[in-house]
């Protein structure tokens, strides 16, 4: 039996001063809205907001520039190196990188940046054109990708160095929570096949197109413990009785399936007092 670690994330507390400092770095106006669960700095065209540690997007920082357009073709998108450098400096300056991690967690942070192309069709020719620049930091925990909107660093740039969009979702602390049995991928596949083949009206063969083990949090925070846990992302080719020439690719489906289990209820960690 293989085991795998589960971790508990603690999101950063709201800090008005540091958010206003970050807003200055984005040359953003100083209209501030504060609630128990979030703080936002905004002006006519732009918003920088950070969710509190108990909000559904616990700790997520989002910046949106309404003046730009994420879907537009930018004539001269910022060079990827420059975008990556700006993002790295911004994260460092405002302490927005992932916080302290447990000794049992080996964290890798892999910066990336690239130009994203659009394709234009004029009725005759397809033309691939640079549209914008994307930059970010991929996280890997104990060799597995960390995936999901609450553990993401991503920025989009247009023609200048100030981003059109910035999404930073990282923890302040990552602690070991428990070790559990790792559900084997072929057990997941077998269970999926059994459950789908058993369905009335739909006893066709299914195909697993892809199965990936990742660390992920729940899409939204629903209460402590806020786990960063292993999940399988399974791409399933749906069985389909084609009523017309449905091409070579039938509908696919993405499933997020927990990849851990505790052998007995007693294996669940005892509740701990909040810090």
């Amino acid at each position: 039996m293989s085991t795998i670690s589960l971790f508990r994330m603690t999101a950063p507390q709201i800090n008005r001063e540091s958010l206003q400092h970050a807003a200055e770095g984005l040359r953003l106006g100083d209209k501030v809205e504060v609630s128990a669960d979030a703080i936002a700095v905004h002006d006519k065209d732009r918003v920088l907001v950070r969710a509190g540690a108990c909000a559904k997007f616990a700790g997520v920082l989002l910046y949106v520039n309404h003046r730009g357009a994420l879907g537009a073709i930018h004539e001269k998108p910022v060079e990827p190196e420059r975008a990556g450098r700006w993002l790295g400096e911004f994260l460092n300056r405002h302490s927005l990188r992932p916080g302290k991690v447990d000794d049992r967690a080996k964290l890798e942070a892999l910066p990336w940046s690239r130009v994203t192309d659009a394709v234009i069709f004029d009725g005759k020719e397809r033309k691939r054109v640079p549209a914008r620049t994307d930059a970010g930091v991929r996280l890997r925990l104990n060799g597995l990708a960390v995936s999901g909107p609450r553990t993401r660093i991503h920025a989009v740039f247009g023609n200048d160095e100030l981003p059109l969009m910035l999404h930073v979702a990282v923890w302040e602390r990552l602690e070991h929570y428990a070790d559990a049995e790792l559900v084997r991928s072929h057990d997941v596949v077998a269970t999926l096949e059994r459950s789908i083949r058993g369905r009335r009206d739909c006893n066709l063969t299914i195909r697993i197109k892809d199965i990936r083990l990742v660390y992920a949090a729940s899409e939204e925070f629903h209460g402590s413990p806020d786990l960063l846990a292993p999940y399988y992302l399974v791409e399933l080719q749906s069985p389909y009785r084609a009523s017309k020439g449905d091409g070579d690719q039938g509908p696919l489906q993405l499933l997020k399936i927990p990849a851990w289990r505790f052998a007995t209820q007693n294996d669940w960690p005892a509740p701990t007092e909040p810090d």
Partner: protein
Amino acid sequence: MCGPQVRARHLIRYRVTGVTRYAAITASARTGRCVLAREVGVEWINDYNNLNKLTHEHEDAGGFYDELVNHDGWIGRFNWGDSNAWEDDFKRTSKGGHAPDWVETCDIVYFTGHGSPSGFYFRSDTPDDSLVEGDFVSGPTNGDMRLGTGDLDWLALEVCNTLQLDATLGGVNRDVFDRWAEAFAGLHTILSFTTTSLDLATPGRYFAAFLDGRWLNVVFGFPFPVTVSPLKMIDSWFMMAEICQPDDVEAAVLYANTQGTDTQNDYAWGHGHVSPDPIRGAASWFSWTWVPHAC
């Protein structure tokens, strides 16, 4: 089998129409003619009889509908789910469909269920058939959709793979323009995904909240109204994907333009600029642009 279903469905629609159709007539900035005010329709399917069942599509589409109707003053034209969601509502009349009676009565339509590069899927026991197909699926010009001849400006498809750039149909690569360009008959934008995406409850509500400028309340939970600028249509779609979906999921948009239009800068009606409709043949050029957004 379909008889009672048809009658029941149209009776409901007739009643709803009677209440709302005269409630909000306004002048259209695009044409100067009197048209119905901002209207939204949604269709969703959880209970497929021909594909894997889904779980959250009623909440997903319902959230979009609720946000626009109950928080932004839109008129809700229809919210059809499962056996009441029909492929026929999207299909052009020349193929026997009734798009002018349904999706073309709305400014924006949101569908959520299964999708593929070939199109998006319905139950197999509802009119007309189970797939709104693109061109080249069953014939080079046999696509079901020719949209934008009525009110429809935006079609949001919260489904997998529909805007995948390249796809093999019948052994030949048919790219996103082969499959969907002919669907634009005044339509501004199709918003969808190039990859698979998770079946979640929240995308519709968040997309709508970015559109109407309530996203600080809806997404970030501010308990008091905070007025910020709404996002553009395309930005709202990309931000929805960004805050809902896992890494490597890729949203995308396909928009059309011609002389005098700038559909990439559209806001939802009532929240900013909306481009004139891009009409084919109205100028010397016409183009379609595909833009992806990887999460």
